[in-house]
């Protein structure tokens, strides 16, 4: 059912996930234990990325933070994908009927509100944790996937093989799942990967608001925002996590570019 392209993509994501799970083990120092005598040390052999404002090793924190960020974002992406494909395909299949109309209305609603901040504010009223961040991210990103899938499904519902299947008496759901979905899914999945950087950025924004990673655990976004305060005297605190983020996004874009050309 899945094309070669998708299989390759899936493998890449799996590798990314595994890598981010394993990366923390490469950290030689405890990312959490602080050492007030070692604040703001510049990068050296002992601390390849220097130390932060509470004396913790930045390299270890980046490795751990990278791991947490990537895992949460990937999880959010996958669930957003699943939910998006589900709703999007239904809406696209029932194009111009009330199901589609409701779908359009709801997604337009979600897009036109600064949803991120509103949701974050509400959820920050209850005890914040990483699960809630994951829920928020999913809740926002499914919309984009859903719209993509819907658009794609719409272009296919008038194709001959669909009409033929209906004429043969196949049930609607079977046509949708076996006939249309595989093709629509492919392009949707591919395009959705480009949202991973956005999800990561949103996760960083969430941790700025206090949702997501709780202190003293590291999170890339949090490290960048906290490090902004010291950018003149200790630029490595913010630059390294930002650079890690940059590399991650770059890799994803490269993967996406390669897969698209195939």
């Amino acid at each position, binding site marked *: 059912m899945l094309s070669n392209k998708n299989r390759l993509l899936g493998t890449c994501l799996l590798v990314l996930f595994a890598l981010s799970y394993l990366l923390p083990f490469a950290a030689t120092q405890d990312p959490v234990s602080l050492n007030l005598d070692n604040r703001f040390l510049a990068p050296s052999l002992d601390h390849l990325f220097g130390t932060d404002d509470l004396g913790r090793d930045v390299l270890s924190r980046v490795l751990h933070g990278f791991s947490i960020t990537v895992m949460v974002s990937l999880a959010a992406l996958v669930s957003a994908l699943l939910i998006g494909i589900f709703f999007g395909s239904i809406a696209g299949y029932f194009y111009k009927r009330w199901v589609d109309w409701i779908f359009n*209305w709801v997604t*337009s*609603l979600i*897009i*036109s*509100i*600064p949803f*991120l*901040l*509103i949701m974050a*504010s*509400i959820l920050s*009223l209850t005890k914040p944790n990483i699960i809630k961040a994951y829920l928020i991210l999913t809740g926002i990103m499914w919309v984009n996937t859903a719209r993509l899938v819907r658009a794609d499904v719409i272009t296919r519902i008038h194709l001959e093989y669909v009409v033929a299947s209906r004429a043969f008496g196949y049930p609607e759901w079977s046509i949708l799942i076996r006939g249309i979905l595989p093709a629509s899914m492919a392009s949707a999945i591919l395009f959705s990967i480009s949202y991973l*950087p*956005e999800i*990561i*950025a949103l996760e*960083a*924004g969430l941790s700025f608001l206090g949702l997501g990673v709780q202190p003293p655990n590291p999170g890339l*976004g949090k490290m*960048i*925002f906290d490090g*902004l305060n010291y*950018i003149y005297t200790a630029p490595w605190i*913010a630059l390294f996590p*930002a*650079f890690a*983020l*940059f590399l991650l*996004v*770059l890799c994803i*874009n490269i993967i996406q*570019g390669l897969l698209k050309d195939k």
Partner: protein
Amino acid sequence: MHVLQRSIYYLSLWLGIVLFSFILFHAVPTDPARAVLGPNAGEEQVQSLRIRMGLDQPLPKQFTSYLTEVLQFNFGTSFVDNRSVQVEVGQKLKVTLALIAISLVMTLLYVGMTITFEAFNIAIIGRLLDFIWVSLPTMFSGLLIALLSAHYYPFTQFSGSLSRWTDLLFLLPPAFVLALYPMAILSRIIRDEIAKVRHSQFVLAARANGLSKRDVLYQHILRNAMIPMLAALANQIPMLFTSTFIIEIMFSIPGIGSLLISSLLQRDFPMLEGIVILNGLVVILVYMVFELLYPIIDPRIKSSNAE
């Protein structure tokens, strides 16, 4: 007829936003009265403030009174210091919209540059640059530009309002950061589309007829390539609003984003509702504008709409 249908759709969308924002801020277990008075005020005073804010009435009643006020464009006064919500949001929205407008101008300029270079085949540098722009997280690029402009850019004092055209100059660095992502996406799209359309039949015909490469590009290819680009632009707008919030924080611009965050932290519900509703209004207007633009650019759509 079609216009009427779409207008009703958009109106219902806006009403949905109003309802949503109301539910979000009134049905939520939080206490704006306490946030306003601070931690030291006695319970009785907090309670009396709650009553004066109308928070003790049943929800449906609160909603109907709120709805009537909104329809008269009276958004009430801020919980924090009794400023008029409308005036505040209006001012800040102007700034944010100016910021977005400038970055759109920059984006279009850049896209224009891409198109010109397509005619000259120096594409490869552009491709590389786009790649990098797309990968730069807003925070990173925003940070760098903020630091650089603090040192070298002379216009660092934003007076908070757009009374003189020199104020717009201050918005250039943040607009640039904001534009980076859309620039990359849009120029990549248009490049791909131009490449696609280049190989189609009618282009071949036009070239065969003797039109130069550049004329073909401008007269024929562009019109077709524009459509997906416009669609992508329409999609970028909401994302632009979200990125604006981060950028406003970094560059300390008094726009809607800063207002939203400070109102959130202070539990200033009328202000938050005002922001959500007015912001939603602006976004919906943008959608409507784009919907109107499509048929003009691509006559094919007009006829399909009529059916």
